[in-house]
């Protein structure tokens, strides 16, 4: 591998940020402060993670790897919770959904030998899985909120006919899980045609034979489908009851 980004190179690439800032200034978008903050956050966060990962990979300690993976899951859950718009126990539900979906997917990948139990593989994959689960859960929460608002009458009607909460919510649950998985399905359809996704691009960048690189991308496609499916299912089923009270009435 002969990949080197020099510090001067990076500093010069900062011109790209200035381009956007120039546009924002000219068009009076009032986002320059936001851009500066976000760019510095990105730089600081990435440097910290870079050094942290370097340390963790070198130590190659089993426990430390698991702790780091858990921190990723925790952060993802926290961010998913922020999109819950009032759904109760959103952190607990998100954590469970991300923990289980990440756990199942990782276990399968390790069991079949596609990835090894080493931090340099486990941690990046955990990050990819957890962040996709987080996005899927966010979509599910948003759809649940919207559907329970828009379809109030139908739900009331089902309840009035003597449906239990699950039966009254079932059409919404199905729709929500589907919407949670849909972006993964859509991106699977266009992968390689429209987008050359991160995993594959990174490997090709690093000089890996494209045919080997695509195999990794196929693995990523599989693992993201399983993850968003499991995460959407768990989060949706744990969340829908918070739209009812203990008397099984719609709130």
């Amino acid at each position, binding site marked *: 591998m002969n990949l080197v980004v020099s510090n001067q190179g990076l500093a010069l690439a900062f011109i790209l940020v200035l381009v956007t800032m120039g546009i924002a200034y000219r068009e009076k978008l009032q986002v320059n402060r936001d851009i500066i903050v976000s760019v510095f956050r990105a730089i600081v966060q990435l440097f910290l993670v870079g050094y942290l990962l370097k340390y963790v990979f070198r130590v190659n300690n089993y426990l430390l790897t698991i702790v780091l993976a858990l921190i990723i899951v925790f952060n993802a859950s926290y961010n998913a919770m922020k999109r819950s718009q009032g759904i109760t126990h959103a952190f607990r539900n998100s954590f469970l959904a991300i923990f289980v979906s990440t756990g199942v997917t990782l276990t399968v990948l390790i069991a079949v030998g596609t990835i090894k139990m080493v931090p340099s593989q486990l941690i990046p994959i955990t990050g990819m899985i957890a962040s996709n689960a987080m996005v899927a859960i966010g979509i599910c929460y948003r759809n649940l909120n919207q559907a329970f608002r828009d379809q109030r009458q139908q739900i009331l009607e089902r309840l009035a006919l003597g449906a239990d909460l699950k039966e009254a919510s079932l059409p919404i649950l199905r729709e929500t899980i589907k919407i949670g998985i849909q972006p993964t399905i859509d991106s699977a359809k266009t992968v390689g045609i429209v987008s050359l996704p991160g995993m594959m691009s990174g490997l090709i960048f690093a000089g890996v034979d494209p045919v080997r690189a695509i195999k990794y991308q196929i693995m990523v496609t599989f693992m993201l489908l399983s993850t968003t499916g499991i995460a959407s299912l768990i989060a949706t089923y744990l969340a829908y009851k918070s739209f009812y009270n203990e008397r099984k*009435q719609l709130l």
Partner: protein
Amino acid sequence: MKQIVFEKVAYQVGQQQILHNISLQIDQGEVVTIAGPSGSGKSTLVKLLASLLTPTAGQIWYQGRDITQEEPVAYRRKVSYAMQQPTLFGKTVRENLQFPYELRQLDFDEQRALAGLQAVGLTAVYLDREVKNLSGGERQRVALLRNILILPEVLIMDEVTAGLDANNREIIAQLVAQLQQEGVTIIIVTHDEQEIARASRLVEIKQGQIMTGGQASEFSR
């Protein structure tokens, strides 16, 4: 024992008092018409009875038991609530008529469904008709069938005839007469003059309070 007793029932949302001190008793098999201007609280009153809302004060007793002590799903299967402008589920009329059976994990009784369709003036071909091709009146009649195919003890009809033509209203009136013969208690919410004129017992609600009633004095305790 009275089948339904409202005892000083009130319902409040935030600062807004929607129902005040409602006391009302209904016998099994009675047909009670609840009338009042829109926004008077009549729909809220019957939603409380259907256990779709819980009173903020007072109690509703059903066959001598406080309904808040009843399991809501089982209770709603006995006290069935039909609403104005219902939505039909799925694609066909059949799916809608199967719904009450599916909920109770019973086999669909097609003969009874066909007899039901006939009772509401729809022929057998309607069973597999797509719901999107039904008129407003037909939709409402199919929706009502969902409530009564498995006979409830009480049927609440919350302005189900609003916006329907005379023919549809007449069919529904006949259905009510038939259900009454089968011993079902019927509560009709309406602001239609004809339905009010036809009422055997009228309860009038204004601004969240009962104005007149068959035996108004009897209710105050």
